[in-house]
């Protein structure tokens, strides 16, 4: 009897343990984060970001979103702007995602209301002036943080513009001096570049014409055919831009709206409109279309691939840090991702089909990688070694860490170690530089020995000659 009781109690305890809520379980994600290995194959990697939640408009207390098209985070003000195109409104949130304001209409200066019809993009400068690309009304609206319209910039007028110019502004950014860069749908000549008062300056940073093999063949035909016949053939137009991002240092990052060969998907335009981005290793696939890009203060770029629902994060040299995400229904996957913002160590991605914002948070591993990259970029080479080492301990396939270690050791003048790590990273050009320095150092160190050997050899040769001459000269 007593034994039975004991058994019963232990059984009860066992059940209680099984039923009790488990302590924080390891986060599971619906995707596999990856990077590339030495030979360009994708390799699984620890997660750099984890999806924490998916937020709908109702949860925020402002009603569901509908076909939202743009997110904008104003770092100086700590405010997140959502362009909810389907509901023709702008929602303003604070850092904790609490609704601060909701603009369904703006106040006109002379009284009356300005109603939205199809807002597509927004940019907010540090002082809170908002520039809204209103595609439905074919104009850019400038308003204060209080919702009062300051200016309405209609279609630009200029003799430089083609006759059939159709103004469809859908994205807008503004530089420090207040000049406005507008993307207009269907305009391949470049970004529409306006003075603060809305006068047209020029087309800015036109993309190149993409010459695929097909087009080259068509070009030959065009050269052969008469002008009249050639005019009926498809024209070669530069790639149109799809989205803009104003970087901290005055660079404008522009993503292409589509590309046949996967080339020129992203450009970084300097104030002269010239692409300054180093050639990047191909991320994503040929049919990838980047919907948006966000760049942080350290030059780390995050792209949103709308075709495959992937997010790529690369460092300022274009090496892939993390690739994650995908298409699907779960939290962390997307159906039609349209916009992305980086807010401190979180990412927010707007999905126009799910009508939700997905929040991603940087993991410990991701933080380690970013710390190391930032330390290196700040010139703290020695300090960056420790975080890189930790990264390699967590993921020995992480090439970026080996490159980072190689660079750090190179800067410290420890070339042999730099060579070792560059070799692990399969980084031939950097390896070559380290190798050069190392062999130069070796020659310098053993220079006296080299001189000694040469002198001895010359002496030996000379004495041998003299010896031979004497023997010859000696009477036989």
């Amino acid at each position, binding site marked *: 009897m007593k034994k039975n009781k004991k058994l019963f109690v232990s059984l009860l305890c066992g059940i209680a343990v099984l039923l009790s809520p488990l302590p924080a379980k390891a986060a599971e994600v619906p995707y596999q984060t990856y990077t590339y290995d*030495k*030979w360009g194959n994708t390799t699984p990697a620890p997660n750099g970001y984890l999806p924490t939640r998916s937020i709908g408009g109702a949860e925020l207390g402002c009603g569901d979103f509908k076909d939202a098209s743009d997110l904008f985070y104003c770092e100086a003000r700590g405010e997140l702007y959502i362009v909810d195109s389907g509901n023709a409104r702008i929602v303003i949130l604070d850092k904790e995602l609490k609704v601060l304001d909701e603009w369904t209409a703006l106040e006109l200066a002379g009284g009356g209301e300005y109603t939205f019809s199809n807002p597509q993009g927004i940019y907010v400068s540090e002082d809170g002036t908002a520039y809204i690309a209103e595609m439905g009304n074919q104009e850019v609206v400038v308003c204060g943080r209080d919702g009062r319209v300051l200016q309405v910039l209609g279609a630009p007028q200029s003799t430089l513009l083609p006759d059939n110019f159709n103004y469809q502004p859908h994205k807008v950014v503004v530089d420090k001096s207040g000049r406005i860069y507008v993307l207009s749908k269907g305009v391949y000549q470049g970004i529409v570049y306006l003075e603060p008062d809305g006068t047209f300056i020029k087309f800015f940073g036109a993309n190149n014409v993409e010459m695929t093999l097909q087009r080259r063949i068509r070009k030959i035909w065009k050269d052969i055919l008469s002008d009249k016949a050639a005019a009926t053939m498809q024209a070669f137009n530069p790639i149109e831009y799809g989205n803009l991002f104003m970087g901290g240092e005055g660079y404008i990052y522009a993503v292409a709206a589509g590309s046949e060969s996967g080339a020129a998907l992203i450009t970084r335009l300097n104030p002269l409109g010239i692409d300054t981005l180093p050639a990047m290793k191909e991320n994503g696939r040929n049919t990838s279309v980047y919907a948006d890009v966000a760049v942080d203060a350290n030059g780390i770029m995050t792209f949103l691939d709308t075709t495959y629902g992937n997010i790529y994060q690369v460092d300022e040299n274009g090496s892939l840090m993390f690739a994650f995400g995908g298409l699907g229904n779960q939290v962390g996957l997307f159906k039609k991702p349209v916009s992305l913002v980086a807010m401190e160590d979180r990412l927010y991605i707007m999905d126009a089909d799910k009508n939700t914002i997905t929040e991603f948070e940087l993991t410990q591993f991701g933080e380690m990688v970013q710390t190391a990259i930032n330390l290196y970029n700040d010139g703290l080479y020695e300090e960056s070694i420790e975080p890189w080492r930790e990264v390699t301990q967590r993921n020995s396939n992480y090439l970026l860490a080996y490159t980072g270690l190689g660079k750090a050791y190179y800067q410290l003048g420890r070339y042999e170690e730099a060579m070792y790590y560059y*070799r692990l990273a399969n980084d*031939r*050009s950097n*390896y*070559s*530089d380290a*190798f*050069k320095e190392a*062999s130069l150092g070796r020659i310098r160190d053993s220079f006296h020995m080299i001189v000694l050997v040469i002198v001895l050899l010359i002496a030996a040769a000379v004495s041998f000659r003299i010896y031979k001459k004497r023997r010859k000269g000696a009477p036989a």
Partner: protein
Amino acid sequence: MNKLKEGLKQCKYTMFHPVNGFDQVKWNNAGSIPVCIMILAAFFLVNVFDAVLTGFIFNTNNPDKISVPSIFLITMGGFLICYVANWAVSSLMFTEGKSRHVFIMFCYVLLPYTVFEMIYIIATNLVNAEMSAFLDALRFIGFLWSFIILIFGEYYVHQLTFGKVILNLILTGIGIVIILFLLLLGYSLVQQIYVFIYTIYNEIVFRI
């Protein structure tokens, strides 16, 4: 042993004096087959070394994907096809080259390339990427030397005029393509026969 030494000497002589060298091969029965086989072996080895021992800066091969049997097949098979194609084309052109002469000529042609490639492989382990132009030049010299030997070899072994030498080389190229095509046809035929027999075997086995 003495014969081998003589063969090596003749080979070296031909490298620097292709006119007299190939004349000796043609009329004095000079040149030795064992030496030629040694050159072929060196050619194969140099191709293996190329994949494995080239310095890291210049070596873009994935070590996991290097296969010595396939290198053997490509080098030796390639040589064999070139040799057979040239011999066949020359026979059709009624030239005077015998198969032994053609074989010796092709082996001699491989020698400068092999030697310079060896030097290249050693050099890649000693220099950095900035020197790549010099290394390319080195390889180019090897190719050029081989080409010159080839022209003189054709000229004297087949007793052709210069124009005919070029024609012979072009026809050899076409011959190589034809041989490859026939090999491919033969390969697919054999495969189909194999599949056919295998199917019949299976049918029989299932019914027994």
